[in-house]
């Protein structure tokens, strides 16, 4: 699975199967600070992500 973290502008590759919420916990990302985009679709935190899914964690925090 590929995960793009917008705030760091970095890609991560990892083996994972579970909810987006648990993925964020694994990555140490506060769920209040990101939107989860799975395969270019906005999804909620209880969406399951696995296999070849591509995730983008869009940063809610921006600007000044």
């Amino acid at each position, binding site marked *: 699975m590929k995960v793009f973290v*917008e*705030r760091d502008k970095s890609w991560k590759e990892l083996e994972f199967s579970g909810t987006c919420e648990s993925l964020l916990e694994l990555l140490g990302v*506060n*769920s*209040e*600070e990101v*939107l989860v*985009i799975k395969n270019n679709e*906005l*999804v*909620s935190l209880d969406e399951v992500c696995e296999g070849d899914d591509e995730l983008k964690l*869009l*940063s*809610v*925090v*921006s*600007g*000044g």
Partner: protein
Amino acid sequence: MGCSVCSDKVVMSGFCKVHFLDYFEKKVEDTISRFGLLDKDDRVCVAVSGGKDSVVLLYLLNKFGYDVSALAIDEGIEGYRSETLDFLRVFCSSYGVPLVIKSFKDETGRDLDDMPSHGSMCNACGTFRRFMLNKYSQGFDKVATGHNLDDEAQAVLMNLFKAQLDLFDRQGPITRESDGFTRKIKPLYYLREKEILAFAFLKGFDVPFVECPFARLSFRSKVRDFINSAEVINPGVKDNIISTFLDLKISNDSPVVTGTCEVCSFPSEGNICRACRLKETF
């Protein structure tokens, strides 16, 4: 559990894509109505940065049929503002909204990058931004900003932590009428940052992600982290901060007394306003 309206897959705030967009717009309309933020024939100056909040705000006020113009402030921070201004020019043009851009450099003679820090660039930035927003919104009935629930909860705690209770007057969905100040409104007041980003994403606004280079050093960023951590542990923290604040504000509302700055003639708490005092340090 599906969308609370139609049982389709939930994407945000308990709604599917379609009903989330409806909920969002209705929430803005309700805030405008509930607090009397706008009359139909008001001329509204929308303070825009090119970030998600102000872009969404501008889009909606324009869609709702208000007479809007956009005002952007270029602080002169290298590698930061130019990208969002480029986006703004295209966005405003596509919706037929006039855009005016004013810069710190033209106003003060310096970019923010060239100003003395006095410990934090945020102080100078905030002072000049507020001064310029007020100055260049004269002649409009209201100035609208994209401040959201997260921003306001952070500001309430920041002012509390710094014992700056006089700054509470800036908080709330609408400021009081005061000579020399364009009345400021915050139509996104009850919407969370996540919801605003979700709206922008679903509407296809390709808002550039940029972060002020000074932001991560700021006191606000620490308060934001604190509140977001608390919200995860105890959902509802942000709503509670805002509702408690508004209850206290209403019960303690007292008139703001300001004088006139001897240098620039704009409103001032003392003989010389904060902006002019800062300029004296250059």
